């Protein structure tokens, strides 16, 4: 019903873009004063930092600089704003808190967000109110569009990543997404701490042969009405599903790495044709969608739907051990590769405890923390580090992590498709909303 009402409207995308243009014009015209102020403060901070880091001897080594950061971090309380919707992840963050307290005297407070944009908005509100120092946020778990927003609005501290000793262990060659976040260069403004790749989770007891391509998925939905769904965008799992479908369906996947332009309608036309065909066979006839990725996992456990899309490679194994999925849950990836990305931590420009935040970011990159993150009992996702750069002892940490039949090996994970430029996601979400949403 709702869809009929809106299909007669002109797409709202153009309208929203206009608003953005208006806002942009206003921003350019009027933001100079704010910019000037920010610049003055940034200069002051920068000069202060310069005298601090490169100051006295100017020949101070990286090691000595890091030592002085450690010294200043000792006793600081770091407020880490991180999505808090997963109990498993929350426990991991709590463990990080214990370790940095022991090791560096940094008190870590996990500010649990239901949406990372909360933190972005907060930093913005603080800048609006002229709060250019001692902000309330020290560290943000971030990537993609939120990162782009903060970078574009100069809301970030740094570049700081090169100062972290453990960053040298990151596998920038094989895992280019550790420095290209949704194709946007990180420029040292955010530090990677985990690799994500979209996997599909299903219950092998009810489904012998799961669909391994978008075409097979459509056939499966037609044969099993109501057993296929995906989370409603802008939930990031739902958006990723759409991008995954776009990769497979479009003729020219290469353009997705460039910002979306006039080619948007042409490039995405096969996606909408596919969804138009799929929707009537979806769960609830496509009139409702799970609100989050984890809500869809619940539906799989209930047996209401067959497939759960997850960005966590170890999801099936950790959910089984938590009692959230049956023992028979297994995961797989679509043929032709699945979208992967990296998630990061960044420091707001006005962080009160930037040193403490850097210490935490560095610890997240340590072999100890990374190895634990690959363990499905604690998180279960691939590391950002390069095994080749680790000592034998450090590699041992990784190889001793137990494996699970529910988790795919790196070989089984296959090709990682890079995230399209964020502009694709924004416009796909808007179009989806117009066609299938509210």
């Amino acid at each position: 019903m709702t869809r009929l009402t809106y299909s007669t409207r002109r797409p709202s995308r153009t309208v929203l873009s206009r608003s953005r243009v208006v806002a942009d014009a206003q921003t350019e015209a009027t933001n100079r004063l704010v910019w000037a102020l920010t610049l003055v403060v940034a200069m002051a901070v920068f000069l202060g930092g310069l005298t601090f880091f490169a100051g006295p001897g100017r020949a101070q080594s990286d090691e000595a600089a890091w030592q002085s950061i450690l010294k200043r971090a000792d006793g600081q309380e770091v407020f880490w704003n991180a999505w808090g919707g997963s109990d498993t992840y929350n426990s991991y963050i709590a463990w990080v808190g214990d370790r940095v307290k022991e090791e560096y005297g940094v008190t870590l407070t996990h500010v649990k967000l239901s949406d990372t944009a909360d933190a972005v908005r907060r930093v913005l509100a603080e800048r609006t109110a002229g709060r250019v120092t001692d902000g309330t946020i020290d560290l943000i778990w971030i990537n993609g569009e939120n990162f782009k927003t903060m970078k574009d609005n100069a809301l970030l501290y740094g570049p700081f990543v090169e100062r972290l000793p453990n960053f040298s262990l990151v596998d920038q060659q094989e895992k280019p997404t550790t420095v290209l976040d949704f194709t946007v260069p990180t420029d040292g403004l955010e530090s990677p701490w985990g690799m994500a790749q979209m996997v599909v989770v299903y219950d092998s007891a009810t489904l012998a042969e799961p669909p391994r391509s978008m075409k097979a998925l459509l056939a499966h939905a037609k044969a099993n009405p109501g057993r296929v769904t995906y989370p409603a965008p802008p939930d990031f799992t739902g958006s990723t599903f759409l991008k995954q479908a776009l990769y497979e369906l479009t003729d020219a996947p290469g353009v997705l790495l460039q910002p979306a332009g006039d080619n948007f309608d042409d490039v995405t036309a096969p996606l909408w044709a596919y969804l138009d065909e799929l929707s009537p066979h979806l769960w609830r006839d496509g009139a409702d969608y799970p609100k989050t990725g984890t809500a869809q996992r619940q539906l799989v456990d209930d047996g209401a739907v067959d497939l759960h899309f997850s960005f966590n490679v170890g999801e099936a194994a950790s959910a089984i051990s938590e009692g959230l999925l049956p023992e028979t849950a297994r995961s797989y990836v679509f043929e032709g590769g699945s979208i992967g990305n990296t998630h990061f931590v960044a420091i707001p420009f006005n962080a009160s405890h930037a040193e403490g935040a850097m210490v935490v970011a560095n610890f997240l990159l340590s072999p100890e923390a990374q190895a634990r993150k690959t363990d499905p009992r604690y998180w279960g996702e691939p590391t950002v580090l390069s095994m080749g750069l680790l000592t034998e002892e450090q590699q041992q940490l990784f190889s001793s992590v137990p494996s699970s039949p529910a988790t795919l090996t790196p070989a089984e994970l296959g090709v990682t498709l890079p995230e399209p430029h964020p502009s694709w996601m924004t416009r796909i979400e808007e179009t989806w909303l117009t066609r299938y949403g509210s």
Partner: protein
Amino acid sequence: MRSGEIGNTWLRIAPALTLLAFMGPVLAGLTGTLLPAFGYLPGLGGTSLSIAFWGDFGDYPGVGSAVWRSFWTGMLATVLSLAIVVIFAASWRGQRVFVWLHRGLAPILSVPHSAVALGLLFLLAPSGWIMRLVSPWATGFERPPDLALAPDPYGLVFVLGLVVKEIPFLLLMMLSGLNQIPERQSVTLSRSLGYSAMIGWIKIVLPQLYPVMRLPIYAVLAYSVSVVDMAVVLLPATSPTLGLLVMRWFNDPDLTYQFLAAVGATVQLGLVVGAIVIWWGAERVVAAFARPWLSAGGRGKLSRVLALPGLGLATLAWGLGAASVAGMIIWSFAHRWRFPDALPRAYSLGNWVNKTDGLLDPALVTLVTGGVAACIALFLVVSCLENEQRNRLNPGRHLLWLLYLPLLIPQVAFLFGAQALLVAFRLDGSWMAIIWAHLLFVLPYLFLSLSDPYRRLDPRYRVTALSLGQSQSRVFWTITLPLLLRPILIALAVGFAVSVGQYLPTIFAGGGRFATLTTEAVTLAGNGDRRLIGLYVFAQSFLPFLGFGIAALWPLWRFRNRRGMRGLV
């Protein structure tokens, strides 16, 4: 004498101060919402006024149906709740079943809206408890059917959730209103004139009662039209209300959506005002049509027809509320509970043993925030009421409207702007900010709960005590307060329960640094782990329940040897 003077001075300025603490921030918050709605938000480059964003608002997909959905679900929920409460009270007032059901419904007051919503979803969903109880033996379903039961495309489950939550509140408000009018005499008189008890109640008692209940009804209406935490759980992802759209825009990574969010919050304000105006108009119409009926002499042969549905619906509301909470509590002890098992296949205390660490901090924040806010509110309310008594002022109806403002204005409409204000004064994320934000909502409810018993206390007790030569303050401490111990404790418990249930104020004023049981529960709701949600629903409901328990039992124990206190206790 000196301290007495200070006390008196305080009492005189208390009402003004209370209103100031209220009106200032609310009005400032509203301004902070209205300006961005018209394009003024310097932080995002909006430095001149424009109405451009109103066009964007109108063009956003589905905004029209979202506004309409907000309106009709809120209206329907309020009409249904009120109708059920009135019919139930009219037909069963004065009978034992009324007392039983009223006692049964009272604990649902202490269960936060979000908890009821989460419980109801599990109860009614195609994979939910009711379906599990009848599957597969009766339905043949081995897997949950793909039926849109909850959430349903029409939003009826959402309306149901609101009704379950608002019935106990309206019933409480009705009972407090009934104390202010000669109910029994009216009913006895009309029965002696040959009216059935129910029709007598509706024709004589209800018209006297309604003016007293008007403000609480408007509060319910405003809340239902703008609620966010219940809607997010009980409505389909594709059928949001305006409140949900505002939150979606507010949360959008693209910051230009902030303007849209401000427009949405302003429209939300207009929607609530519009709903109240329409309701007010409907009151006039109903009154005009009902007036001839009142004296037309009909004595109600139909009353029996309505009595059973009245009882049935009230019982149903109670049953749904109770089963919702019960289901979630069972979940908190479950390890595996898959469809179609009627009860968990495997139980585990793991949830309680391993997850309570994470529960302690939010529980503490909830306790401190609610406790302090309720105590401050009690102090202010008692000051105002005592001032009224001492100076024998007539309770000001207009003042009450001002006090109700935070309940009648949708929360997003002024919290949005208030947050900017807090950030500017660097108060965001402070205890002061969060307690103040809670106070805005705690105080009106506490006032609502305490003002009637306070004013109804036989004034001759005070006069007698004064004429015995005791000072005003001694009479207050030794006579007024002990006599009102129970209503005071209940008011405290009400205030505390209101604070526990607050979602948006905690989010906006807490700067993300304060996690309460409610914010944690709503955050975890997206996580889909029903066992953990169950634990939080339990904790969320238990704390306020404990408060009400203490309020009910302590005076009983304290005055166990005072028979005359039983009417008051």
